[in-house]
């Protein structure tokens, strides 16, 4: 049954790759302005945030070493604000690789972690009321959290006049 979550997680990575196609390096921190209002979440922040979430938080949940880079939490964490300063983000290719590496790291651990670990209480008190166990939390991280942000990226593409990824 974990295979179904992993298959969806793998699809997310593929979808992220498709969404990045056709985006130029200098567009990665663009916040398109339509009708006087901007879309704040740009590709660099979205892909970096997903890599950071899996590689950091996801790793902690599964009891494995974090692969979060120093400084990433400040610019890519859940309370960070996307910046148009491209210099603070890795480039597009690096971000794509960080996401792929995070996926690989989490996927292996999720496949091997024992059921007892997944049944343990969520260690994050503020999230535990909604996601009581580690299993509930990591399922959300690997499915809904990722694709909500990828949906934002697909909308960003439309706002930039780019075609649909599929």
């Amino acid at each position: 049954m974990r295979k179904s979550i992993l298959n969806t997680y793998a699809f997310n990575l593929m979808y992220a790759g498709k969404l990045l196609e056709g985006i130029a390096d200098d567009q990665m921190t663009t916040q398109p302005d339509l009708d006087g209002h901007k879309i704040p979440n740009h590709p660099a922040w979205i892909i970096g945030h997903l890599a950071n979430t899996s590689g950091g938080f996801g790793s902690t949940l599964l009891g494995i070493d974090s692969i979060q880079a120093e400084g990433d939490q400040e610019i890519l964490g859940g309370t960070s604000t996307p910046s148009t300063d491209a210099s603070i983000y890795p480039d597009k290719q690096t971000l794509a690789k960080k996401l792929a590496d995070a996926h690989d790291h989490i996927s292996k651990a999720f496949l091997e972690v024992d059921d007892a670990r997944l049944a343990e209480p969520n260690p994050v008190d503020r999230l535990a009321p909604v996601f009581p166990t580690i299993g509930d939390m990591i399922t959300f991280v690997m499915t809904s959290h990722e694709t909500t942000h990828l949906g934002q990226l697909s909308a960003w593409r439309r706002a930039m006049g780019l075609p649909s990824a599929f």
Partner: protein
Amino acid sequence: MTAIANALLIAWNRNADYGNKLVADLSAEQMILQPGHDAGPGMNHPAWILSHLNAYHAPLIAMLGGEEFPDPKDHPFGMQSKPQADASIYASKEELVAAWQQGHDDVALHVAAATEASLAQPLKLERWKKPFPTVIDALPYVMISHESTHLGQLSAWRRVQGLPSV
């Protein structure tokens, strides 16, 4: 209920709440606003997003019951449809939201009642059999990731309207 079904149900219920919040403060006119439509493909508007997502409730219930169901891609608001500026082709906001909540409640009941045997049933829809051989293979994507992607699009749409995040 199996642990994975429980985890999916948590994400499903969270999406129900999130979807309600994303449209709660929208007027009827805003439901069909499509920013960027003049210059390109345009963003998916709330009426289309809810209509499209509501179309998956019946297939999910049929799937969980081991029954055949029409291919969602052929639904009037299936994946081959595009958002239209004609409000008359969509249900009212109130009707869409009511269907959204009712559909979520109905699917949740069927997920809660699912057994390992019912989740292991093969899918009856030919097009989905290869990517999703069994019901549990399909649920994370059809139930969670697909819906979350479109809700992410709606969250980005809100920012272009100058509306706050929810």
